């Protein structure tokens, strides 16, 4: 696959995030998909199933969830994406350390970067980075500076 074909797969993946139409995940996520973030590695039993739950969960929490592509950089079997994403929160949010915050109606507007390894036209491995500190500051779970 060329880098342009690989980029096209990443753009299909972003369409799934933006539309919530999950079916293409069957085609574009490798069954043995592996995910790395912030020093942890996750090997879901089924890549496409895991991703369906992930995206459905994000869209339940933010029904107007939207991702904008800021940068797409490809070399060899890798595609790097830099993204802006956000939406309006529904209900409560649970922090990674188990606290609950009332988040209904709060606007989230954040950025993310991903590095994706593609193999045989599928997303096989992914490394991600989010600005989670600012995300939880926006939701009020971590104090923000008052000046």
């Amino acid at each position, binding site marked *: 696959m060329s*880098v342009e074909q690989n980029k096209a797969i990443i753009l299909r993946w972003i369409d799934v*995030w933006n539309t919530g139409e999950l079916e293409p995940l069957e085609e574009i996520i490798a069954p043995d998909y592996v*995910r790395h*973030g*912030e*020093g*942890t590695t*996750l090997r879901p039993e089924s890549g496409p199933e895991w991703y369906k*739950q*992930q*995206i*459905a*969960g*994000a869209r*339940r*929490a933010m029904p107007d*969830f939207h*991702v904008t592509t800021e*940068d797409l*950089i*490809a*070399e*060899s079997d*890798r595609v*790097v994406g*830099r*993204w802006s*994403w956000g939406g309006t929160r529904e209900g409560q*949010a*649970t*922090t*990674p*350390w*188990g*606290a609950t915050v009332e988040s209904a109606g709060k606007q989230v507007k954040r*950025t*993310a*970067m*991903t*590095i994706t390894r593609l193999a045989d036209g599928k997303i096989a491995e992914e*490394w*991600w*980075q*989010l*600005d*989670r*500190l*600012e995300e*939880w*500051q926006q939701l009020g779970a*971590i*104090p*923000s*500076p008052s000046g």
Partner: protein
Amino acid sequence: MSTDSNVALVRRFVDEVINGGHLDLVDEFFAPDFVNHSPNFGSAPDREGLKQLLGALRAAFPDAVMRVEDVVAAGDKVMIRFTSDGTQAAEFAGIPPAGRRLQARGFSLARIADGRVVERWNVQDNLETPQSLGAVVSYPTSTEGRASEQGTPSTIDKNKAVVRHMLEDLLNGNRPDLVGEVFSPEIQAGGVAVGLERVGQAISHHHAEFSGFQYIIDELIGEGDTVVVRGYFRGTQTGEIRAGGLTIAPTGKPVECHVFDLYRLRDERIIEEIAMGDTLGLFQQLGFVSVQATPAEATSQPEEVPH
């Protein structure tokens, strides 16, 4: 032998012998009557000559890694397109070691019979990575190698070398005095023009925050004028940290923080940097966020990890 098992043989040779340093396995991969049609660096054109060459390369470039970029197989032949790089630690082919990163790229074709390589052809360019940005040194490789063009590295390779130089020499070496070598005076960070002086201060600041500060590159990816780095830094927090508008007093705790950085370059100088780090994880390690998540919790909650 199928083409699949031939490809597997070549890949195992690269992994185990070239990258793994198991030179004792050469006989498993090469037949006794092996003929090397491209005996690099004046080596003998047989299996013994190949062993000696591999040993000499290993001694001179102990950290060298060969990456198989493409594989094409048909019939009894396997061709790979490869890139290699390593740091010269000992004299090689009459060239004294200078701690330089050297890079090679080329094509290698193997003919395989009964599970072992019987013939090899190879064409490669050996390029000094343009960290010193001086002359590109091309070493004699083989008759084909000499005839091949002594091309300059692509812009992407040059840009990657600038970014690597910045991280490994300026940042890790705490050399703010060298910022003019790698950053443009127009440097922007987070969309704001910051100027060279503040870039230098930021470099020193990392060492003030963390003793033993070290940035480790996991991966460099480049396209056009852009280079992306995935890596992490580690150190012991012995100075005050300010991040996200918050201040943390020195804790004396060792930390490891994963980072993605995007750099844009013009004329081999960095003109823009966009950084994204695991600041929340850093704060958790320092005990600022009271209850630390387990890795499983942190990555298994769909609604909190949109990517």
